[in-house]
């Protein structure tokens, strides 16, 4: 249970640069009326960012020359997507995804 002053400062530095992008829009949007085109742009952010986070995990960027599919993850992704579409349930999708992933890793 120890730490050093430099470690604490490093963590505080990292905390500041993660905190500011999170809070600045919350402080700023209150006093400014955003133009319609910006609001329209923002309306596309959720779908874009959520699919970015999915694609980020489907791709294997480790191998230097080619970006390929991360096959075990992709094989799990397909039934998980179907389950998500059919059930529209966050909890069922998460649990099913984990079980399928474990099974895929077990057999591959």
């Amino acid at each position, binding site marked *: 249970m120890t730490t050093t002053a430099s470690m604490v400062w490093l963590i505080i530095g990292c905390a500041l640069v993660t905190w500011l992008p999170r809070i600045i829009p919350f*402080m700023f949007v209150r006093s400014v009326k955003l133009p319609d085109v910006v609001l329209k742009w923002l309306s596309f952010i959720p779908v874009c960012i959520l699919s970015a986070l999915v694609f980020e995990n489907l791709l294997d960027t480790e191998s230097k020359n080619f970006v390929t599919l991360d096959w075990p993850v992709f094989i799990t992704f397909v039934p998980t997507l179907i389950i998500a579409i059919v059930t529209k349930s966050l909890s069922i*999708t998460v649990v099913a995804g984990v079980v399928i992933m474990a099974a895929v890793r077990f057999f591959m």
Partner: protein
Amino acid sequence: MTSTTELHAKSTTSSDNSFLQGVKDCVPTLLGYISIGLAFGVVGSASGMSVLEIALLTILVYAGSAQFIFCALLLTSSPASAIIVTIFVVNLRHLLMSLTLAPQFTRYSMLRNVGFGTLLTDETFGVAVTKQMQNGKLYGKWMDGLNITAYSFWILSCVAGAFLGQWVANPEKWGLDFALIAMFVALLVLQLSSVSKNKIVHYLMLIGYMAVSMYGLSYIVPSHVAVLLATIIVATIGVVTDK
């Protein structure tokens, strides 16, 4: 779309603005927090961080991917300035998320807004925008319930991971790392199911552009930068191609 009608009908119930409902809506994401948190605790210990340091990092930074990258950079003994700059870039996507949610909360005080922003994560963002799409409105108490539940479970899991590291040395073997991906998949599907029928083709097209951009950008920039750039590019395409 019948499901949409049902979801809109639900918006009249008073429970949607309660702290408790926020806690309940957080529950499906907890498996993700717990498994990734445990994994982070293990990785943190393996990178030579003490339990105190792991707890401090978890409490103050509160961002999964940034915490993992922090460990990786620590192991390669990168200079502090490089670590801070990297963490900044990794979490810059939160600026977009915060910008998306903030207009929903202008009726609350500055202090409360800072609170909402402070506890914003990929997961709480996903749950909140989905809720907003279904109910049309977001409430502060609901957001607090969601945020505080997520934050507490994240801290507990990371610290537990730091202590119990040796027992779950390989969380991937149990597929637990997929919890987060499955969650993003489900949140994406929920987003799309709330989109009106005449717009769905446009959204699916944007997802196609996202796939192409993510693939292309992954050749030239680290994946966290690709997430940011692809989102900015494709949201702009979305505005331009919107009818």
